[in-house]
């Protein structure tokens, strides 16, 4: 089961996301270093989970449209615009052939700072400070509810993420074995840690 969790460092202007790194087919782990945090552009990423074909196809579709917009108009879309565009596409497809994927969109804009959007396959869109999906997130969301503060530093946020991973490993029967954690801030996107 795909796991991802994201949190916004409001005061210190960053957003941190963590995904598990398993590619799974039925009961077989095909890959343990699958990067499910895909870049949309230099300052935005999708964390994707759900139906195997749908999630890659859909996110590639959104990424291509974002790139086309940037080329046509010589300016990039804001995180909010990409989030709403994505939601619109999910909504349009919903009543004919829905995309079965849940997404977290994390981005940084010069003017508005970091932001995190939670989307599900029913075209729900919410702007959140903490968001996640998968069985693992059930434990971690309550943990973060207690521990998240708007003025977290990057180091504190990383510690929170690692505590979350520990919780998942401890309590989930089919816990993922490996994880990847990335951060987005004014300098773009970078990997801060892979577990193990």
């Amino acid at each position, binding site marked *: 089961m795909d796991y991802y969790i994201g949190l916004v460092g409001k005061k210190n202007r960053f957003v941190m996301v963590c995904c598990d790194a398993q590619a799974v087919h039925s009961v077989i782990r095909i890959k343990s270093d699958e990067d499910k945090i895909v870049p949309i552009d230099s300052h935005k990423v999708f964390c994707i989970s759900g139906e195997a074909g749908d999630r890659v196809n859909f996110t590639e579709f959104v990424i291509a449209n974002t790139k086309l917009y940037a080329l046509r108009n010589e*300016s990039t879309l*804001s995180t909010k*615009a990409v989030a*709403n565009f994505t939601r619109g596409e999910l909504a349009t497809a919903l009543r004919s052939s829905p995309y079965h994927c849940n997404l977290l969109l994390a981005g940084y804009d010069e003017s508005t700072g970091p932001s995190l959007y939670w989307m599900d396959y029913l075209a729900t869109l919410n702007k959140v400070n903490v968001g996640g999906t998968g069985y693992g997130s059930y434990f971690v969301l309550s943990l973060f509810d207690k521990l998240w503060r708007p003025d977290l530093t990057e180091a504190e946020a990383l510690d929170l993420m690692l505590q979350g991973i520990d919780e998942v490993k401890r309590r989930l029967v089919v816990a993922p074995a490996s994880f990847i954690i990335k951060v987005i801030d004014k300098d773009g996107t970078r990997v801060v840690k892979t577990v193990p």
Partner: protein
Amino acid sequence: MSRRYDSRTTIFSPEGRLYQVEYAMEAISNAGAAIGILATDGVVLIAEKKITSKLLDTNAVGVRREKMYKLDDHVACAVAGMTADANILINNCRLSAQRYYFAYQEPIPVEQLVRSVCDTKQAYTQFGGQRPFGVSILYAGWDEHHGFQLYQSDPSGNFGGWKAVAIGGSHQAAQNILKTEFKEGLSMAEAIPLIVKVLAKSMDTSLTSDKVELATVTRDAEAGKMDFKIYEAAELKPLLDVANAAKEADAAAC
């Protein structure tokens, strides 16, 4: 000779001209003028109304505005040419702006709105066999990418960004006056009397408030709110009086 190539809109003449597009531009030159000036803190548009009659019922919604229209909260336009054609394009603009907002939850950048209308106009010069739109439009707007902007589009579908531009009747005369009178860094307080003066000078008759429409696009930066203001007759009169007096003084001096 060129008569042979008039009837089809979508073919070139042997000299490489599109006659229908040129004829459309000719139609616009006979229509009421419209002028726009870009200032540091806003955009001002002025237009000459051609339909003036005291029998006109100005309280009826349809005829209250002849030249100036709001396309979205942050962009407005002035039209010159065939009013019925203009109505179609204005409706397209408004649709385009709202579709963008529906998709992105953000207001459409002004240039993209202009481009989408111009793509429509261009289509009528290339296929379909229908005549082009006999309208030129001045777009005045604001967006967070480029601030205040002024654009002009014509029946061919070409558009450009301008600091000051005139379309419609006597536009060449008005454009020449603008070339000498326009200065960089004008504020709205300076641009408004200037635009009235330019219209007055380029027109043969003197200005009266039932013949002129004046509108401004400004923004309250603190509140983050746009303001599209169309001047009522009472506000227009002092501006027109100043311009008319200056024009008479010039004429007397000659």
